[in-house]
């Protein structure tokens, strides 16, 4: 069952403090880069709910990310809506609606078929944005102004300010982490983990597993939509690439790299992947080759990701873990 050990919690608090003071030291480029990373982290956490907890490997998660971003962008450009209070609910609601439809169809399948059907349906969303001029077609849309939070004349938060954007994204990331932690501790979280471990048994125990899978799918899609809103606000640009299967694959790699089923793992995964990419791209033009090798090595040597590694390093193994290891060889019990 998902619980944070104390050392991990301490590390996360330290990391949070670091992120809170970072804008005082970092230059503009890195403030923007870390903002981009935190957006990806929100996106990846939402996918972890599906992949790591419910056991549903989706290769179409970028659809909801793109919908959130496009809806926010079009509302700003064509509707002159700039209030965060309107844009965020609109982006999330649009993603939730499409997630309900795609989820309703997809959860009828399992395993490789689930991967293929989420991919196929997400490609339909991709071409919806790609082929319709209203959404800017293949060129995408440049978003003319940034969202803000204002009461009357007083502007409380203006996301065109890079530091405001940074802190807003950080706040959203922490809020999403806490919200998902609460969900995972509640009966809902126990239920989806049970479904991942042994779906047939959950059915025999009286759970209508489709309800829970659909709920997980909609929650994940809605949060991905929130991440899409952040992306649109950050980049002031949305194009079909945000909805492409490359983007779905990237966020899946981040979840795998960070550690499925740990929630904080995907945050670490986003940081490691993007920072490493930035670093390697500064050294060689062949950076994609290096990144590919890195991901292969990580999957080979750290199958539980960075989160799994940290768990192993900081957590004194309890008696029952040892018994389990003795009885079951390599069956992981740390992240259940």
């Amino acid at each position, binding site marked *: 069952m998902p619980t944070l050990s104390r050392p991990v919690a301490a590390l996360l608090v330290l990391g949070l403090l670091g992120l809170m003071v970072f804008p005082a030291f970092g230059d503009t480029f890195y403030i923007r880069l870390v903002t981009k990373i935190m957006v990806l982290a929100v996106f990846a956490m939402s996918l972890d709910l599906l992949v790591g907890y419910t056991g549903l490997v989706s290769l179409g998660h970028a659809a909801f990310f793109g919908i959130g971003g496009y809806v926010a962008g079009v509302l700003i450009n064509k509707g002159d809506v700039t209030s965060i209070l309107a844009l965020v609910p609109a982006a999330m609601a649009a993603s939730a609606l499409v997630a309900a439809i795609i989820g309703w169809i997809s959860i009828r399948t399992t395993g490789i078929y689930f991967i293929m059907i989420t991919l196929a349906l997400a490609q339909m969303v991709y071409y919806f944005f790609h082929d319709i001029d209203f959404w800017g077609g293949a060129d995408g849309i440049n978003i003319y102004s940034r969202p803000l939070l204002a009461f009357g004349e007083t502007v409380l938060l203006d996301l065109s300010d890079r530091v405001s954007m940074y802190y807003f994204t950080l706040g959203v990331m922490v809020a999403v982490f806490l919200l998902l932690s609460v969900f995972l501790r509640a009966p809902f979280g*126990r239920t989806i983990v*049970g479904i991942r471990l042994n779906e047939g048994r*959950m059915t*025999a*125990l*009286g*759970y*209508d597993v489709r309800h829970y899978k659909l*709920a997980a799918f909609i929650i994940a899609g809605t949060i991905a939509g929130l991440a899409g809103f952040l992306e649109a606000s950050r980049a002031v640009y949305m194009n079909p690439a945000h909805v492409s299967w490359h983007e779905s694959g990237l966020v899946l790699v981040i979840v795998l790299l960070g550690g499925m089923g740990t929630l904080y793992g995907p945050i670490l995964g986003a940081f490691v992947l993007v920072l490493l990419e930035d670093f390697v791209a500064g050294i060689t033009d062949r950076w994609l080759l290096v990144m590919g090798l890195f991901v292969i090595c990580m999957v080979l040597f750290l199958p539980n990701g960075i989160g799994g590694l940290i768990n192993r390093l900081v957590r004194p193994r309890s008696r029952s873990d040892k018994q389990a290891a*003795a009885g079951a060889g390599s069956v992981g019990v740390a992240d259940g």
Partner: protein
Amino acid sequence: MADIILETKDLTRQFGGLVAVSSVSLAFERGRTHAIIGPNGAGKTTLINLLSGNLLPTSGTIRFRGQDISHLTADKVSQMGIGRSFQKTNIFLPLTCFENCFLAAQSRLPSALRFLRPAAAYDDVAARAEKALVLCGLGHRRDTVATAMSYGEQRQLEIGMMLATEPELLLLDEPLAGMGADEAMQVVDLLKRLAENHTLILIEHDMDAVFAIADRLTVMVNGTHLATGTVDEVRADPAVQQAYLGEEEEV
């Protein structure tokens, strides 16, 4: 007139050309322990799968407490109060015994689509899980991860999880399969205790255990119902002796 809790009428299940269960009509009395016996391939597990909703019948009906449950899926059947344990151990291996039973007990919340209150705060669920653990004889193994236990203990946990859902009727598919003599004795004792306030329907190959536990025997051969009666009646039935018991004793 006996008090019938579960009844099948012309229950049939085909897999392509194979008729695994053929027009079986049975009545199970409330509070009794019924054993279904028969050689391999007789259709016993298919029958249990039909009763538990894991398979849907090709034709025929199943009535539980007078209500037609023929086309309910396994989760709905479980919610009606029919618990089921599996022949092949079917538990959550990375979880502790308590967590296994907790998941089972939690299924009785009106809905587990509960997002805010921590699961650990549901004291009634935890109490039911603890009770089931003690009942199935694993009270001392509460925090042991299921993978770390012996096969026999895993079988006990299998039954414990079913009990945590507080069913009225228990479907047990070979509860003693693969157990050592001592473990089997324990489970037989457990089943006897459960029989005091539950209706049991079990498949079992261990004839000593069957004769020790069961009030009623049903014999199946090749998907059809051959005979039903008390242990003595079935033992005396010449057709049964020829079809099943005779063969069994030779082994």
